[in-house]
């Protein structure tokens, strides 16, 4: 008999957990289960057989947080692998601590990718202000393209941080709204939005000036801030020029002769409390 649980775009973990509990507690082998997202709508297995009634079962406590992450993964076979490891956990309670186990290693790698995706979303979401005239709460809007289905996992971070304003984060598949203190998600297909606001100029000024041209390390930058994020970052289009001019700027610093201290320097230094004379031996000019 083949079971074919279908996972929705929102609330995927809850649906996966209920199905996995029903199947695993009845000892259904992994090869008899075909996991798929609803949207994939393959007809080969259709809905599959009706799930058996769940019986009580326990899992190691590290399994739940890991499963929440892996459920959000877009990697092929993620939900299947998760189920296989769940089955093995029943007889090997410490399985998840054994990183030398190939399936555990694969599963933690999947979780790591999701965690990294979440981290990058925390870092690279950029809000633009869209407060309408007369509104008493400020409103902000952002467009972001995550690699995995992390919108629900990440929303709490933005709620804890930006609770005194209204905000909307739009991704290609989900729109997350925080409106007067209430969070909601909607599965909604959206096209990329090109957004900007006035404060971006100040931010770009900061970005350009906090850069030290004498220490160019382009690879280090790109490994942490891959190019795929650049199109939504207001500062990123400055990068090519900053790199191109770096060498010339350093050369110029080196070639410019030391300047004569401004007149007020001597006056100000003279007013400071006396210090041992020899200490100033190395004074320039």
């Amino acid at each position, binding site marked *: 008999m083949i079971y074919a649980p279908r996972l929705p775009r929102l609330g995927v973990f809850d649906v996966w957990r209920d199905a996995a509990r029903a199947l695993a507690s009845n000892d259904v082998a992994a090869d008899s289960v075909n996991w798929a997202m609803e949207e994939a709508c393959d007809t080969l297995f259709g809905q599959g057989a009706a799930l058996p009634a769940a019986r009580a079962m326990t899992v190691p406590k590290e399994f739940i947080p890991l499963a929440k992450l892996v459920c959000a993964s877009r990697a092929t076979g993620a939900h299947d692998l998760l189920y296989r490891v769940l089955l093995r956990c029943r007889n090997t309670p410490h399985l998840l601590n054994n990183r030398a186990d190939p399936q555990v290693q694969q599963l933690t790698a999947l979780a790591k990718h999701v965690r990294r995706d979440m981290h990058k979303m925390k870092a690279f979401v950029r809000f633009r202000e869209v407060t309408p005239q007369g509104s008493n709460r400020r409103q902000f809007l952002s467009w972001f393209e995550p690699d995995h289905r992390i919108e629900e996992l990440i929303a709490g971070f933005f709620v804890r941080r930006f609770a*005194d304003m209204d905000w909307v984060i739009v991704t290609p598949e989900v729109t997350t709204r925080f409106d007067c203190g209430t969070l909601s998600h909607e599965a909604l297909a959206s096209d990329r939005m090109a957004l900007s606001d006035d*404060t971006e100029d100040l931010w770009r000024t900061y970005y350009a000036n906090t850069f030290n041209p004498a220490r160019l390390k382009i690879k280090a*930058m790109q490994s942490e801030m891959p190019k795929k994020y650049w199109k939504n970052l207001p500062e990123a289009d400055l990068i090519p020029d900053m790199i191109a001019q770096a060498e010339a700027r350093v050369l110029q610093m080196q070639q410019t002769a030391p300047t004569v*201290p401004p007149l007020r320097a001597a006056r100000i*230094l003279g007013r400071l409390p006396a210090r041992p004379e020899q200490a100033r031996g*190395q004074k320039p000019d």
Partner: protein
Amino acid sequence: MAKMNLQEKLAVLSDAAKYDASCASSGTTRRNSAGGKGLGSTEGSGICHAYTPDGRCISLLKILMTNFCIYDCAYCINRVSSQVQRARFTVEEVVHLTTEFYRRNYIEGLFLSSGIIKSPDDTMADMVRIARELREVHHFRGYIHLKTIPDAAPELIEQAGLLADRLSMNMELPTDAGLRTYAPEKNAEEIRRAMGRVHERKLAARDQTHSGRRGAKFAPAGQSTQLIVGADGANDATILQSSTRLYSSYKLKRVYYSAFSPIPDSTAALPLIKPPLVREHRLYQADWLMRFYGYEATEIASATTGGMLDLTVDPKLAWALANRQVFPVDVNRAGKEMLLRVPGFGTKSVARILSARRNGALGYGDLTRIGALVNKAKPFITTRDWSPGSMTDAENLRARFAPKPEQLSLL
């Protein structure tokens, strides 16, 4: 001089602040604004919201309150004898930039430092006002790092510590003699005394909490300092010795190493060399070994040449190459301290090895899955199915790790 607008001031005052390497925003208390009042949160690990082409992370809005300064530190772009353009933010301007950047998710908070205007006390008082305005008027729950001025009155440092997550004071030069020469107005003893006071104040805050009364948190993310590398003649062994002293005496969270880099309008007193970035990197690695791997500064120094770290191989590998008599290490039996000495094994791999080997003896392939750098480790370990044979003591072992010399290109 025409009045500068906010953008012009920001350009000058962020340019002037960038020589401070620290941008950390981690390790403070957890806070959030989910109640609907106030703005911001801190959740343990910091976030880098952008990277500049110098590979550095932007986590904080790192600016000077002003770059006017009455001191004359030779390595500093803001010294009184420099011709650099001067600017000064108002309290409101700093608050505006911090909160507006924060709302757009550009930053985790503010790192405020300043040139010394009028007197150390006046300057520190203005910085404290900015932090207070952020915390008490705007209920800002993000991260604040204040660069404290060692000579400022203890009451001001007290207030700074109650408002900020982190306090720092920069030693800048690794030796007292260097400081006397290049920063004649500064006093190494005074800086250490001030660090000592902050450390004691932190301990006091902790004791209060233990005795049941909730003491106000004092600089919960600790204090840090920065040493400039390559401006004076101090060698790496001396620098690491200074760091050890700072870590042990004042329990600093971090010592930052900043390769001296040419600044606009520099003095004739300092070399305008390319910043020694590799050297800086090796110092960070050595610092890491001292803090998390149980190495003593003297052990690291014993594997240097004339007190300078090897630039071609990292300090852990350098130590292993110089101490081959203790290798190979048996991955299935060795204790944690010894596993931590194996090149290619990080703290995480070691923790995983210790827990995985309870399920049975580990082989070579298991180490790869665990995430260890097995290629690097293999001359130094034995496993269930691997022994390095004569590899450990081979003459050419160092050459195996040193990068290939660059190809000469024909003109």
